[in-house]
């Protein structure tokens, strides 16, 4: 026998407590579902929401002002990870609440909610990763659940098609990411972000082709996951085909996680390549803003329109990453937080409009909504104005923060392009408002009357307005959340 010493040093697990709770509960729900009679399957959803609330509590309790390392420094819980985790869990709660009515008639809903929790778990691990292995595994866990969730309505052809496209392109992107990581590993001999950063810093010659290739492959892989143009091709199809609550969920949560880990990678692992990645990001941002805002104009399906809108918005969020520094990164977090509420609100209205057989997905379906349901019409109007960035709603401050950060960092031309495309984008958002308020009713409305959903819409609308009037608290929180990394 060789000299194996027991016990191994037991890893620190307190910082991982929220993840452990989520993982255990997701498995418990998976099994509990088997013993529930068919009419009580809905309980799994409430259990999933309860899990999320407990996870929020655990995250708030465990996150301190300092970074806490766990698992031999491969996992970190700092204010940045804590804040982004709260956003991810918040997006998941929204996704579950929106699913309550929508998925009621589907089969296997226990697995549905448990897969959402697993996906959330993947994202939570991702934002806490300080090692490429953990980052990649978290990413795959998140993506694998999303592939299944997108194709959940297997009898709907476009749902299966969307899932297959998403899966194949997603696997390709994962390969690129891994290939890029392998380059950096070959150069530095380590997978820890900090060690890679040090090795690249001491390399001196960063113009080397090997470094550039590693950087490009990693950026390409990550750009796919957050649907930055030109890696956005899957987005409209996947958004349209997925069940609408999943569209809402994957429009926000993976973006939060993707940008959080991208920020961590560029700060910790690639600081010596700043000039290179800023150049690449600038092109990606301009392309995303252009594709997102121009292509959205031609869409008649509101889910496709919001897919292109997402592409446009991630372009703006990337501006924060390009600007860098405390101001840029906190602007990125502000944008992600505000985007969470705007996007979820808009999708909640779409889901409320779902009728028997017909889903409120075409723009025409919104015609004349203000006369039938002035409350919903007002909320949808607020969300659209906020997405467009009309002053004194949440979306305005989000755009303001990233644009100001870009200007301060010396990227004046990028900010100007951003403002230009923001004006282009305002057209199609306001067109929805025009349908709602100025067109005649074309189809009979029949809204689902779920009080929980209505409360969600009301709260979301209030939050969007409140952030618009008092943006300072959110900006302060986001600035404080950077304590751990900048």
């Amino acid at each position, binding site marked *: 026998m*060789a000299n*194996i010493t027991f016990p191994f040093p037991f890893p620190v697990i307190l910082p991982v407590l929220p993840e452990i709770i989520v*993982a255990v509960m997701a498995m418990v729900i998976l099994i509990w579902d088997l013993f529930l009679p068919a009419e009580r399957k809905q309980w799994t959803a409430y259990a999933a929401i309860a899990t999320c609330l407990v996870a929020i509590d655990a995250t708030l309790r465990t996150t301190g002002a300092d970074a806490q390392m766990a698992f031999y420094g*491969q996992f970190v819980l700092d204010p940045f990870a804590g804040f982004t985790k709260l956003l991810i869990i918040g997006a998941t709660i929204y996704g579950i609440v929106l699913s309550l009515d929508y998925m009621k008639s589907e089969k296997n809903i226990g697995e549905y909610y*448990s897969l959402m929790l697993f996906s959330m778990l993947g994202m939570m691990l991702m934002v806490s990763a300080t090692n490429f292995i953990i980052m990649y595994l978290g990413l795959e866990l998140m993506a694998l659940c999303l592939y299944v969730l997108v194709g959940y309505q297997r009898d709907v052809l476009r749902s299966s098609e969307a899932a297959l496209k998403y899966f194949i392109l997603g696997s390709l992107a994962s390969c690129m990411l891994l290939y890029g990581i392998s380059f950096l590993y*070959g150069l530095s001999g380590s997978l820890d972000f900090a060690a890679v950063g040090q090795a690249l810093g001491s390399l001196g010659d960063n113009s*080397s*082709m090997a470094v550039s290739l590693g950087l490009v492959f990693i950026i390409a892989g990550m750009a796919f996951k957050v649907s930055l143009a030109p890696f956005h091709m899957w987005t409209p199809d996947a958004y349209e085909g997925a069940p609408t609550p999943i569209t809402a969920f994957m429009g926000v949560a993976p973006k939060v996680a993707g940008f959080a880990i991208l920020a961590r990678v560029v700060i910790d692992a690639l600081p010596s390549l700043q000039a290179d990645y800023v150049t690449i990001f600038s092109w990606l941002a301009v392309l995303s803003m252009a594709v997102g805002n121009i292509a959205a104009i031609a869409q008649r399906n509101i889910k496709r329109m919001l897919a292109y809108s997402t592409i446009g918005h991630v372009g703006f969020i990337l501006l924060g990453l390009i600007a860098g520094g405390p101001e840029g990164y906190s602007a990125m977090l502000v944008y992600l937080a505000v985007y969470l509420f705007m996007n979820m609100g808009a999708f909640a209205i779409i889901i409320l409009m779902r009728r028997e057989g017909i889903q409120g997905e075409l723009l025409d379906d919104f015609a004349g909504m203000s006369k039938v349901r002035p409350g919903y019409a007002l909320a949808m109007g607020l969300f659209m104005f906020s997405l467009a960035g009309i002053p004194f709603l949440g979306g305005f401050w989000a755009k303001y923060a990233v644009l100001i950060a870009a200007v301060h960092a010396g990227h004046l031309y990028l900010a100007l392009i951003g403002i230009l495309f923001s004006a282009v984008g305002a057209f199609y958002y306001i067109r929805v408002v025009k349908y709602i308020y100025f067109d005649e009713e074309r189809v009979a409305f029949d809204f689902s009357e779920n009080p929980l959903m209505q409360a969600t819409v009301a709260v979301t609308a209030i939050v969007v307005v409140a952030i618009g009037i008092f943006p300072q608290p959110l900006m302060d929180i986001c600035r404080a959340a950077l304590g751990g990394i900048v």
Partner: protein
Amino acid sequence: MLEAAFFYLFGGLAVVAALGVVMARNTIHSVMFLIFCFFNASGLFFMLDAEFLGIILILIYVGAVMVMFMFVIMMLEVNFARLREGFLQYLPIGGAIAVMLLIELIAAATSGVFSSKTASTVEHFGREVNNTMEIGKVLYTKYLLGFEIAAIILLVALVGAVVLTLRSRKDAKYQVISKQVKVRKEDRLRKVEM
């Protein structure tokens, strides 16, 4: 010298086999080439003294994954001729990207940043190192978190596959054992007047 010769042998054959995977007209031949490619890759692992990884590659990829590939290909009956229709149409742009990438990869490989000290296998020759045990130690200590996440990923893959494919079919004939046990003579037997 001998090591270099074997490296080029395995590496070269792996590249040839990989080309065969994409070029072969018959899908089964593609799978065979892929198996051959895996064998060569495992040879490379052996040369790095990573015999555990080499064996695992053969056992899992050749033994399990490729068998499943075979099943899928034989059961799905995909019309691969139709899949190839756009081949010439996409060849110019795809080929251009491939050539560009090849040039970049060669430039990266020859740029000297992958220094010989990391590539050398000689330094741990003659040391008492048990490959399998070292991997086990690292896997259950330093990479414990990653190991656990990988386990959850496998669980999700399992659940996902079941969720997407499990459909109760109306025409399927299920065996209900409780009914079979409870059945009485009167239910099945019928007296017929002769």
